[in-house]
């Protein structure tokens, strides 16, 4: 298992699950957890679900990715309430998370991942 994990936060349950599948195929040894949609299954974000995704992740150092602004803000709140080190990236959601997962899975170190994420900052 990679020491660094990935948490995904999306507005839509299927979207979060889909990105998880895409990443898992290429990075089976990276702990990837996700939250998508509200607690009722509507489109939106759930503080509890995001908190759970952070806590359930096997890593204590987490890189996190989100689709739209409100998933970011809810993630930020969850981060404030968590004891883990969770970094939030304003990068392209799918491409950023895929890049991080590939690199971590290939054994790249933290600095290398950060460097490769830079060109994907779009928010």
């Amino acid at each position, binding site marked *: 298992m990679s020491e660094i994990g990935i948490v995904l936060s999306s507005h839509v349950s299927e979207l979060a699950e889909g990105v998880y599948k895409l990443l898992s195929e290429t990075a089976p040894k990276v702990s990837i957890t996700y939250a998508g949609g509200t607690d009722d299954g*509507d489109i939106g*974000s759930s*503080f509890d679900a995001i908190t759970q995704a952070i806590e359930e992740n096997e890593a204590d150092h987490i890189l996190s990715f989100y689709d739209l602004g*409100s998933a970011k803000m809810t993630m930020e709140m969850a981060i404030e309430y968590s004891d883990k080190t969770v970094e939030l990236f304003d990068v392209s959601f799918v491409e950023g998370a895929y890049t991080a997962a590939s690199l971590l899975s290939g054994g790249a170190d933290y600095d290398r991942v950060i460097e490769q994420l830079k060109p994907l900052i779009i928010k």
Partner: protein
Amino acid sequence: MLTVENTKAWLLRFAEKVEANKAHLSDLDSVIGDGDHGNNMARGIKAMQEALESKEASDPADVLKNASMALLSKIGGASGPLYGSAFLDMSKQAKEDASDVSAIFRAGLSGIQKRGKAEPGEKTMVDVWHPVIKALESGELTTDTITDAVEATKPLKATKGRASYLGERSIGELDPGAVSSSYLFEAWLEGED
């Protein structure tokens, strides 16, 4: 001066207004957003009402904190972490000094801005909080201040939140979060009578 009683009463009046205007809030949001602000707020204030009824509160700070947690957990949209942050920071300030209401609201605004990074003029709830608190600080807050602040969001171009994706097209509509925030302040004013 905030007390457990007047804080609860104020928030319950806020909840009533949101409930009564749920469809209106969603309609506004469907023009420049995704059409869920009324549902989001209704879900949040329902959880807030339940929390106010079921959770012990030894001081107004507790009341505000319980409200914060309910809104944060249940709203589900951008307004969730925003109202959540507002009430959390109001709670902290109320803990320090429950007598200075302006300072408490000011802390709420700074919580919103810390979270959402919006300045006045970006067509968000900040455009209601900001002028309302200024008026409150100078002892001049009336319902007109609130109504005017809401109306003033119409000509603004959104540069934060979902509406910002519309660019110029966001001009000419009220901001849904500004409207829901107006209910909070109207509910407050009604308690001041």
